[in-house]
């Protein structure tokens, strides 16, 4: 996995609560292979109208935000379907960090599997950052994982908490499967015990 350590980049504000993963990537693209052009599917129906033309009012279609690699969203970002394609599409666009007051649980977990960092900050702090990003289109901010801080466009630093395990995995770009395979003996011992204690579970 690609590691995540520190990112200084343009940030885009998305002040909509409950942005579901169907909106991040509509279902009709889920059978499409990942590869060049995959970024086209990111927020597809919010970015393009039915004829394929850009909707000028959507934030990522506005010049200052086109290079955004940080997304500052609202409550419950990434709720709904478990499709990891949502993270793949955001990643293909160039996003590596997401800041919101809360995330859908499955989306949150999927981020960590793809070298992207979801950051939870209090609702008023996130709203304040979004306001600055609206007022100063194209402003940059910093997301720093080692120090667990987000620095807003105004230079104010906000600390965030992160699961120590996820932090380590992201900093090192850890292959989680390799880590688990290191526990092969414990897994085998568990299976032996389960065979005795819950034998009916095996088909």
């Amino acid at each position, binding site marked *: 996995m690609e590691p995540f350590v520190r990112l200084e980049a343009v940030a885009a504000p998305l*002040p909509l609560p409950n942005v579901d993963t169907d909106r991040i990537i509509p279902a009709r693209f889920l*059978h499409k292979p990942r590869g060049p052009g995959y970024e086209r599917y990111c927020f597809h129906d919010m970015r393009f109208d039915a004829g394929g033309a850009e909707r000028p009012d959507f934030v990522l279609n506005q010049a200052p935000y086109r290079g955004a690699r940080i997304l500052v969203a609202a409550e419950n970002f990434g709720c709904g379907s478990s499709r990891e394609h949502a993270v793949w599409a955001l990643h293909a666009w160039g996003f590596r960090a997401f800041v919101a007051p809360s995330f859908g*649980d499955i989306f*949150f977990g999927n981020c960590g599997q793809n070298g992207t960092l979801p950051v939870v900050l209090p609702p008023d702090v996130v709203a304040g950052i979004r306001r600055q990003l609206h007022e100063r289109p194209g402003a940059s901010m910093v997301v720093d994982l080692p120090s667990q801080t987000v620095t807003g466009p105004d230079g104010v630093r906000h600390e965030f908490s992160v699961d120590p395990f996820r932090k380590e995995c992201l900093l090192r770009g850890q292959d989680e499967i390799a880590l688990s395979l290191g526990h092969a003996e414990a897994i085998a011992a568990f299976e032996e015990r389960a065979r005795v204690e*819950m034998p009916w579970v095996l088909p």
Partner: protein
Amino acid sequence: MSSRSSAATDGHLVSAGLSLFEKIWRRHVVAEGPGGQTLLYVDRHLLHDGSGSAFGRLRSAGRPLRRPERCFATADHFVPTAPGTAATSDPEIRAMVDGLARHTAEAGISHFGVGDPRQGIVHVMGPEQGLTQPGITLVCGDSHTATHGALGALAFGIGSSEVEHVLATQCLWQRKPAVMRIRVDGPRPFGVTAKDVILAVIARIGAAGGTGHAIEYAGSTIAAMSMEERMTVCNMSIEAGARAGMIAPDDTTYAYLEGRPHAPRGDMWGRALAFWKTLPSDPDAAFDREMGLDAREIAPMVTWGTSPQDALPITGHIPDPAAAGDAVRRASMERALHYMGLTPGTRLMEVPVDRVFIGSCTNSRLEDLRASAAVARGRRAVVPAMVVPGSGLIKRAAEAEGLDRIFRAAGFEWREPGCSMCVGMNGDLGRAGERCASTSNRNFEGRQGQGVRTHLMSPAMAAAAAVTGRLTDVRTLGPAAEGG
């Protein structure tokens, strides 16, 4: 499960009894990792035709499957449901269905493919085959995996990387979520179904109300529900933000399970039953959060917006964004009403519908089809309406009792099993601007097709909408013209 749950849980559970969740969790800990992460064993892994990319990555990495005998697969998301259509004409979509058959054959995984009567929606198939059992951990690369919690399992949806991880290790790194108990008590009023109960719960706690939690549903209303009704309730836990929803196993659970193909038999049944009876939460179990709902106050529900939390009693009116508490919520309501083409103050019962969908992992089981058929009998659909049974076995059972004939006589389409119009990736779609009364679980923008407007409701309410052409209070429908 969540990576952001309360760390205090362990502390105050030491001296108290254990919850259903806690009992299952503790039994499946393989190793405690750094930073409060647990390597959790997965007893059962269900796969579907959207799970293919995980097999590809596993092969690229040269990693074998650890326990193919603990995996079961069926095709549902991408399968066509038009009668007599074994395969879609779209080669890219057909490749998804064919890919699952190939991957599972190579890996030695049981697969119920198109044409097998056991094929169906993965969350219908698991319980139906007796694969879902109390006290087990079960995962699937689909967010509605909480459905299986209705049988007292710890079941939750995972992403594609986690599917790959489970295939390779039969385990997952998880942080223990907080546990919330939602009690629903009292008799359900006439016309109020399990779907109405869960929509009322989601409307109360919100689409993120259960984030970071596993939910245990309890109380006399839940205890009085059939197994199929319990599955409807647990199914929509994710629409309240919770990855897992669960209900303590009881005699209803055991009666449902006994005799199913993968359920224990003989002496093993007795041993399993003795274990299952230890699972319900202890009377003094502690919960991180508790909430109560009085079933007598619940009415048949419909959604008006683009989040499942936007649910109201059918007797209500389209809400006014001007009354919203804050600017973000107001803007979000305005966007939803614009998308839905609705005006504040309109009576819900005056909203016309263009199309009806009865199906999905929420409401495609035999009892759901019976409830829809009871309304359709002797009436006539005035808009296109499709009925999609949850599995081949449900389709057969429904046909054996004549439900297909009732639907056909009423002008409803009777189709082959699959996810159909719930997911919008198999060819079953509405057209832009159409309004669809749907028994599925999500009213998201574009969920049933670009520009399609979805209203969620129960199977009886959806059938009522089909025969009137508008959102309808099924309680006031009156007798059918032909005396059905």
